[in-house]
Each structure stands twice: as C-alpha cells, then as structure tokens.
C-alpha cells in the first residue's frame, strides 16, 4: 500500500511538473494512452495516442493562441469520459471477480475447450492468456486443467460463466487480463478516479478558457455577422447536391471542399453560393423539361431526386420546377448581396490603391517643389548679394569720396560721379534681370498668353503663336508654364538649329495644353538635360506632365499638360477697350 502511495505521489509530481512546463495540453498524451490501456492496443487506440501526440506537439509549437482553448475543452471531456469508462469497466470486472470468486469457492471451473485464436493487433497472445490462467490457477481451490483457459463473458448475464465455445465477438480479452489481477483492477479504479478528479478539476478552468476564447473570437464573429456572411450557406447548398447526385466520392469531396472554402475563404464561399444555387436551379429546369409531355418525350425518364422531391411524374416535375424557381429566386436575391457587394468593395479597394499612389506622388512633387523653392531663394540671395548689394555699397563709397573731393578737385569728383551713375545703372540692370528671372513683369501684368508673346518677341527665331486662353490662370501655374515655355524655346534656339518654332497654347475641359514644336535636328532628351527635367518637376507640382518627342533628325515636339482652371475672362484693359 505504501509503495502504491509512493508511486501515486511520484506520478503526481511528474505530472505537475509536466503540466507546469508544457501546459495542460500535455495531459492529452497520458489520457490517450490510458484509453489505449482501457480499450486494448489496436489500430484506433494507437491512432488516438498518435493523434494526441500530434495535437500536443502542434498545439505546443504552432497554434499557441488556440492551445488553451483546444486542450482545455478537449481534456476534461476526455478525462471524465475515460474515468467513467474505467469505473464502468472496473465495476463489471468486480462483478466478474465476484462471480469468479464464487465459482472458485464452489470449485467451479470455467473451461474453455481451446485457446482463443489471436484476433489481431490488440488481442493478447496465447502466452499471455496462459499466464493469466496460471495466475488464476494460483487461487485456492481452483482446479484448472493445464492447457485450458479461463475467461469471463461480458455480454449476456455478466456473472454467468460461459463454458465451451464462446463466440469471438463477445470476448474481451483485456478483461481477462485485468480481471485476473486484483492489482490491475484496483489500479483501474484508482486511475479512473484520478481521471475523474482531474477532469472535474479542469472543467471550471476549461470553461474559463472557453469564455476567454469566445471573448477573443467574438469581435471576429461580430464582424462576420455584420458583413452578412452568406458563405456559411455554401455547405448546406452543396449538400443539396447530395440529393441529386447521391453520395459519391466526388460529392463528398465537394462538400469537404465547401467546408474548407467556407472556413478559409469566407468571401469566395459567399460568392459561390448564388452561383451554385443558379446551377442547381438550371438543373432543376432541365429536369422539368424532361418530364414535359409531348413528342420530344420519347420514353418515361428515370425517376430522380431533386431536393425534397422525387421527380417521377409530370406533377412532381412541376413541384421540382417550383423548387428550382425558389432556388433561382434565392440565388438572384443573394447575388447583389454577395458578388455585387464584393465587387463594390473591390472597387473601393482599387480607389484606395489609387489614393495611396496619389499620396505618394503628392509627397514626391511637394518635396520637389520645396527643394526648388529653397534653391530658388538661395539663387536670389546670391544674386542680390553679389550683384545689386555690392554695387550699392560701391555707390555709397563713391558718393562719400565724392563728397570729400568736391571742394578740392571738382574734376576728379565729376569723374567719380560718372562712375557712381554707371554703378547705379548697372545695379538697376542686374536687379531687372533678377526680377525677370523671378517673375517676369509681363507675366505679372498680363498673364501667360502675353508673357509668351513677349517671350516670342525676344527670341532670335521666328516664333508662330497660336494661343487660345480666354482668361488668367493662378500665378504659380502661370509662372511654371512660362518658364517651361522659356526653357523649351531656349533649347530650340541653342541646340536644335531650328529655323522656326511653333507654340500652341489652349485651355479646354480644365486642362491647359502647351505645345512647343520646332523644325530642328531633334535629339532632345529630358533624362540628359537638367532643364527639361526641372520643367517636368515644376509642372509635376501641379499634377502636370511633360512629354518630349524628339527623334534624331527632328522635328522636336514638347507637349505639356497641366490640369488647372481659368480664373477669369480676359480683361485686357481695366478701362474697357470697346
């Protein structure tokens, strides 16, 4: 007894350590093993043990999140079940022992005429049975003939000892093994009680885990419900196919596939439901058409099942038609709620992708614009610093010197004054250039069309203008377009060797289109020169684009498009020209 208690304590300690280390799921393996002990070692108990092992490993390694839920729900149920089974087995054994004891005391021997042939994997071999019979023979007053085997039947009146030929089906060899050792019996009872206790201990925890799982999964389920998850219908709808096609490998496979699709791709499942419904409906109508009386109905068709109706006459075929119509109607009703809704959702997703691209483009162009603005400011600062500012300093110095010189040498003072005037003129001229580079005055005064006209006048090449711009544009767009045209013109003059240039500007449907074409030698490439690249960037700030067509040998055509709106109708004079 002490040994037994020590053994139990040892088992418990090992168990508790394993539990702490690996979680409650680790109990699955011994529980499954116990099942194997109870039901004998055969194919399915071995498979259960393997499955438990596999599950245990999987749960431990992969599905960590589902670990508790998966095991805690499974374990207590298994344990309680195994415990009850064990107790029941023990009880039946106890009855067997009682009978055995009774029979022993009455010197009643159960004699089985010949050994039970091995019945497979789980059946004990004759050697074991022999051992069992020997242990039975040790019992007092048992007169067991050597070579004879003792067994108990579990079916029929339990304590009836069966002699003679026993039908194999009712023999439970393991009961024989266990039943012949009181120790085994006690162990079975103890194990069962242990299992029951463990199961009871785990149950409330399992419930808590289950609640936690539900809490975790609930939002997902809620989302499912809100989305109108029609995908759940795929499995019953596919099962409808069973009524038509019968249980065949492929129909079963279809149902399994439906289950997998429903779980894995609920959206696809929802899309499939109306399609499958329509297919069945069409099949139904075909079925009906076969039963329509008339010359085309050659022979009486085979009666077939369609859903709940067995189609075996024109009347029942009409019922099937009604059913098919219902299927079709349901499919049609589902269509906008599944396929349509998903298409809309996909369109929305496309819109989002477009927006994301737009955001990226805006970010890029904004960076370019900021860089360009900073570079422009630096250039202006440098120009002012090196140009006008320096000249004004020189002017001031000259004037100061002039003031000192005036009484002493008027002639030298006059020369200095001339120099000062020249300096101021140069400073002014530089400022003019600078201002022109920042924002050309004509552009400020009159807008793009006039500024381009002025630009054309200042160009050394003959420039044909074709401007249709019935109003002003916003200042940044005007400026960007002006400098774009200026750059294109400058390129035409400097590089192309063109004889004439044609500029076309028009505004239609919120799009400003500018074309600068020359009859030069071509070969302009925005990737090489910084000028056109800069123009492209500057236009990009307004979502504008630049396209260059300049094959070697010419001609060159530079096209620009900028989405923009006209500010106002053109007013060439504030006094009215009419």
């Amino acid at each position, binding site marked *: 007894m002490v040994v037994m208690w020590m053994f139990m304590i040892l088992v418990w300690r090992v168990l508790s350590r394993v539990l702490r280390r690996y979680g409650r799921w680790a109990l699955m393996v011994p529980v499954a093993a116990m099942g194997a002990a109870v039901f004998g070692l055969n194919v399915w108990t071995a498979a259960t043990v393997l499955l438990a092992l596999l599950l245990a490993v999987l749960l431990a390694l992969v599905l960590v999140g589902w670990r508790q839920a998966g095991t805690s729900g499974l374990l207590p149920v298994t344990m309680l079940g195994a415990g009850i089974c064990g107790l029941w087995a023990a009880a039946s054994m106890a009855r067997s022992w009682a009978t055995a004891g009774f029979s022993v005391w009455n010197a009643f021997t159960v004699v089985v005429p010949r050994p039970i042939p091995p019945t497979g994997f789980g059946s004990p071999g004759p050697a074991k049975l022999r051992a069992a019979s020997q242990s039975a023979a040790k019992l007092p007053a048992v007169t067991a003939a050597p070579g004879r085997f003792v067994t108990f039947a579990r079916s029929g009146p339990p304590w009836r000892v069966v002699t003679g030929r026993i039908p194999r089906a009712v023999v439970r060899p393991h009961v024989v093994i266990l039943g012949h050792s009181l120790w085994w019996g006690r162990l079975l009872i103890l194990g069962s009680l242990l299992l029951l206790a463990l199961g009871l201990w785990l149950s409330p925890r399992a419930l808590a885990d289950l609640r936690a799982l539900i809490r975790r999964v609930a939002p997902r389920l809620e989302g499912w419900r809100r989305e109108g998850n029609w995908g759940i219908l795929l499995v019953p709808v596919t099962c409808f196919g069973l009524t038509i096609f019968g249980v065949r490998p492929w129909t079963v496979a279809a149902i399994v596939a439906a289950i997998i699709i429903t779980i894995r791709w609920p959206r696809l499942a929802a899309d499939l439901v109306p399609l499958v419904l329509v297919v069945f409906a069409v099949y139904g109508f075909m079925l009906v058409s076969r039963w329509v009386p008339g010359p085309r109905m050659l022979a009486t068709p085979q009666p077939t099942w369609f859903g709940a109706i067995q189609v075996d006459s024109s009347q029942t075929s009409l019922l099937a038609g009604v059913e098919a119509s219902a299927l079709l109607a349901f499919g049609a009703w589902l269509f906008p709620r599944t396929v349509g809704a998903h298409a809309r959702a996909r369109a929305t997703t496309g819109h989002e992708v477009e927006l994301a691209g737009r955001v990226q483009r805006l970010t890029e162009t904004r960076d370019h614009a900021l860089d360009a603005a900073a570079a422009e400011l630096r250039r202006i600062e440098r120009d002012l610093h090196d140009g006008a500012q320096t000249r004004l300093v020189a002017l001031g110095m000259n004037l100061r010197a002039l003031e000192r010189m005036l009484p002493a040498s008027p002639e030298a003072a006059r020369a200095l004054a001339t120099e000062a005037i020249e300096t*101021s003129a140069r400073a*002014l001229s530089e400022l003019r250039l600078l201002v022109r580079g920042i924002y050309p005055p*004509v552009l400020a005064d009159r807008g793009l069309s006039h500024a381009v006209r*002025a630009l054309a006048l200042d160009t050394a090449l003959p420039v044909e203008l074709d401007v249709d711009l019935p109003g002003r544009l916003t200042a940044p767009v005007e400026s960007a377009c002006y400098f774009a045209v200026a750059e294109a013109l400058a390129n035409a003059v400097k590089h192309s060797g063109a004889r004439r240039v044609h500029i076309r500007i028009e505004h239609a449907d919120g799009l400003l289109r500018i074309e600068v074409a020359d009859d030069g030698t071509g070969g302009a490439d925005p990737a090489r020169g910084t000028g056109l690249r800069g123009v492209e960037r500057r236009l990009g700030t307004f979502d504008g684009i630049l396209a260059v067509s300049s094959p070697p040998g010419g001609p060159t055509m530079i096209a620009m498009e900028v989405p923009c709106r006209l500010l106002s109708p053109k007013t060439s004079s504030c006094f009215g020209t009419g």
Partner: protein
Amino acid sequence: MQVVVAEDLFLLRDGLTRLLSAHGFQIAAAVDTAPGLLRALLEHRPDVAVVDVRMPPGFGDDGLQAALEARRQVPGLPVLLLSQYVEQLYAREMLADQMGGVGYLLKDRVFTDEQFVDAIRTVAAGGTVLDPEVVTKLVGRRSRNGPIARLSGREREVLELMAEGRSNTAIAQQLFVTEKAVSKHTTSIFAKLGLAACQDDNRRVLAVLAYLNS
C-alpha cells in the same frame, strides 16, 4: 510746355516734377493712380505725359492701359512711358495706332537728364523714342525675310538710332558721318520699306514700326 506726370512712388514723382520744372516744363498735374492719370490727361490735354507703366490700382500695366485709352480718346496725345523694364510687346502696342508721339524708356534714363528731356521734347513733337534696350533686343534677333532684310548694314544702324528717337543731326554725330549722308540713308530706308514721302515724322514712326514688326 504742359506736362502730366504719373508715378505712384512719391520720391520718384517728386524728383520727376522737380527735374522737369528745372528744365522749364510746367507741371499740369502729378497723379499716382491710373484712373487719376486718365482723368488728368482728358482734362488738361497736356503737351506730353510722363507715365509709369506699373501703377495702382492693379499694379500691372495700368499706366500703359490708361495712356492707351487716353490716346484712343485724344488721338496722337504724346505719351512717354517709364518703366523698370522694357517689353517690345508694350512698345508695339503704343506704336500700333501709327500716330507717333510715343516714348518708352527705362527709368534709369532719368539719370541722364539732358537725354531724358530731349526724349520728352521729341515725343511732344510727335516723334518716337524707344529705349536702347528694346532696340538692342531687336538687333539681337536674326535678320529674316521681309523688308528689313533688304536694308544695308549702315541703313539698319540708322534705323536703330531712329527708333531710339534720335534726330538726323544726332544720328550723324553718333555715326561720324555728315547729316546729308544720314538723310540719304533715311530716304533709302523709307523707299525700301515702301513708305510714301508724305509726312517725314510719321514716316519715321512707320519705319520704326516696320522694324519692330520684322
């Protein structure tokens, strides 16, 4: 000689009126807005107006527009435009009515007051004075087909100076030739540009226009 001065910057307006007074001009009015200019021009009908291109209320080419409008109502009203920059486009618009009495100068030219006053007098007399910068730009352009291409090098030089508003005497001095030679060149220019020998001054304006339009 009656002058209307239109300039929105007080310092410059003040300087201009003083300069012109010092040279014997009578200041009929000194205004600082475009509508004010138009009113003053129509009211005083001055011998010449000195007008800043950029003025209130629009701070665009309001001064130019006011001057053009005044010339539409008073044909040939002499106007000298002053600006921080010169644009051929504006010069063309001023000359478009072919009436003469038009000047277009950079404000820098005020520094050399004798030249400036000469320019005012030329404009008042119905002549055309274009800033050398406008003329330089014209020279910078390539010669092309048209009447101007038929001019000789010397004739073109004479035309350039004519456009700047120089008289034959001044041109002769500038080119170191006799006045007679200059007048021979001008006659040749008018002939080549197909300008009939009627009013000499008007022909000079038309020649300059032809030059601009080339």
